[in-house]
């Protein structure tokens, strides 16, 4: 490396590093008009779960236009500040604390995973900011209820959806149907498998076999072979979209066309996009499908499809609801003071969002319901709405 070339490259790196400093905060800080109300969002923009980040980044445009178009909140426009949580606890906590130490941030939304929510919980207690969690596991719900008054689980707990799906399946396939369970050992899939099994046991039925697999497994032939041997005629499965699509594809290609009761990843537009027609005869108790019968949800799905030419995913609908419910709390509180907004949030008892209705009187499991869907001819067909009451 000649000396001159080395100097030039060093200069290049220095410029490369200095650039973000000048870029400063987010680009679209509007100068004219009243000060915008800032809401923080930590999302996984890079790495394995970057799909969630992509949905969150895109739905923010719709939400900001919608709310600011209709006069904003308390007469002020809102601005969503997004930080990348890099898919690890450390990344999630760093992103959270960066947002929290900016005083005009009123509330923060966690990434779509229970792990990240639990990792951010101690920081939420330290900064005393309203934090809405997108994770769905019961452990997160208990943490919201007991340990952290600032943490609200703005999501339907898996328990409600899994129980509703199993109850429906019990009627549909009759009492003597035999079940096998296959699930990812990742946090939410792990819980969902346990909840499916408990719901079955409530009906006095035991799953013949339970086959766990680690996240990122690609070759399920050995797992499906175990299920085939068990002679089950209904398969219960819990996994993320990519593994779900691979699993469905391999089950169908091995000639097994028994119905599959899947977690919310199984009726997701991405899964259907990948596995296509093979997804038929898959039942799922989900938060969200683009073909939702919920009026607000249908409007959001249409707007998202028209603007991005892509089906609106679960993460997008969730971020949409989280932002709107925070704005609702700010309207009730009448101020952007963090304590007041938090107290206002716990008064919300019947908020109709794009996914379901929310009751935040207790922090855990604020979402009350979801949708029961079956995939036919590559389309998610809504069989019915799941709704449950919150025992306060």
């Amino acid at each position: 490396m000649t000396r001159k070339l080395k100097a030039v490259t060093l200069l290049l790196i220095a410029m490369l590093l200095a650039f973000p400093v000048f870029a400063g905060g987010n680009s679209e800080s509007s100068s004219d008009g009243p000060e915008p109300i800032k809401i923080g969002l930590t999302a996984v923009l890079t790495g394995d779960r970057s799909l969630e980040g992509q949905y969150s980044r895109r739905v923010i445009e719709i939400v900001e236009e919608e709310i600011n178009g209709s006069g904003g909140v308390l007469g002020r426009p809102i601005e969503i500040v997004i930080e990348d949580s890099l898919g690890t606890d450390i990344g999630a906590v760093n992103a959270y604390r960066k947002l929290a130490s900016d005083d005009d941030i009123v509330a923060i939304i966690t990434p779509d995973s229970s792990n990240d929510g639990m990792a951010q919980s101690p920081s939420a207690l330290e900064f005393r900011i309203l934090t809405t969690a997108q994770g769905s596991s019961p452990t997160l719900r208990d943490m919201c209820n007991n340990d952290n008054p600032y943490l609200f689980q703005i999501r339907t707990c898996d328990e409600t959806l899994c129980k509703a799906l199993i109850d429906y399946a019990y009627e549909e396939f009759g009492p003597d149907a035999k079940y096998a369970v296959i699930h990812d050992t990742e946090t939410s899939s792990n819980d969902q498998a346990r909840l499916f099994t408990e719901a079955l046991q409530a009906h006095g039925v035991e799953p013949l076999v339970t086959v766990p697999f680690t996240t990122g497994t690609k070759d399920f032939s050995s797992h499906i072979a175990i299920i085939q041997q068990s002679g089950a005629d209904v398969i219960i499965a819990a996994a993320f979209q990519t593994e779900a699509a691979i699993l469905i594809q391999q089950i169908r290609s091995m000639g097994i066309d028994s119905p599959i009761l899947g977690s919310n990843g199984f009726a997701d537009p991405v899964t259907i996009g990948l596995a296509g027609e093979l997804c038929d005869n898959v039942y799922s108790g989900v938060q969200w499908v683009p073909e939702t019968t919920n009026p607000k949800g249908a409007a959001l799905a249409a707007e998202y499809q028209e603007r991005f030419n892509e089906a609106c995913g679960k993460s997008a609908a969730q971020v949409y609801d989280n932002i709107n419910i925070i704005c609702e709390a700010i309207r009730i509180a009448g101020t952007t003071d963090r304590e007041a907004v938090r107290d206002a949030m716990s008064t919300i008892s019947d908020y109709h969002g794009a996914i379901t209705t929310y009751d935040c009187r207790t922090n855990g499991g604020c979402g009350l319901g979801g949708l029961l869907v079956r995939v036919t001819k590559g389309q998610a067909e809504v069989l019915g709405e799941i709704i449950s009451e919150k025992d306060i």
Partner: protein
Amino acid sequence: MNLQLLFSGFSTGIIYSLIAMGMVLIFRSVGIMNFAQGEFLMFGGYFCYMFNRLLDLPIGLSLILASICMGFVGVVFMRTSYWPLRHAESKAIIVSAMGASIALKEGARLIWGAVPVTVDRASEGVVNIGTAVIMKQNIAIIVIAFMVMVLIYLLLEKTFIGNIMQATAQDQYMASLTGIPVIVSIGMTFAISAMITGIGGGLLAPLFFLNNTMGTTAGAKAFAAIVIGGFGSVPGAIVGGIIVGLVEAFGGAYISSTYQLVLIYVVLFIVLMLRPQGLFGEKIQEKA
């Protein structure tokens, strides 16, 4: 049931062999393990997706075009990540390759988005042999991969270009003395390595779908394949890859489905404890 496991294990295994072969070619020519080889697999898959789904070309043509593009990617990778560091310590080259793998992962996400995608299958449908239902795609993978290996064998052993590449691999300094343009020869080695692994990506896509981080786990398994097969030996890499595939399939079914990935490395340790230089490798001779 075992026949199904055999075929699916064999077909995934042979993909790992393709990655491992790509790595060994680079290792033999420049003496370092390429930590970004997994990303070649992913890029090959995405190129195939670009030709197949975005430009609606048939899958066969897409695979060929994808591997040609991968050839260029291989050369560009060599020029930016290896060549400026060829006189530096091997650890510096490893770290530079790691930096490149992070950049390649993010680059793929920015170009093709984060939504997992797929490509058409090389051959549709299934074949029933007795009770076993075997996807034609698995058979197609084994056939195509085998043809690629034969092609590479012929290129390396029989052709003039092959001899040049072998000579540079043996001793770069001597090769340059005999008039071989070393940068061209190493460039070709990287190109061929990227092409082989890229084809693996195109073949794997219909089964396991493409996302921008699929390269890392595949790369780690290819490492295991190389070590089991023995360092620096191409047949070792091929056999090692197939062993990894089979261990994954049968281990998952009979031993424990949760620790499937871990089983591969347990087998790796057993092989290393019995034969520290792997099945085909030569013992590392330390000179006094």
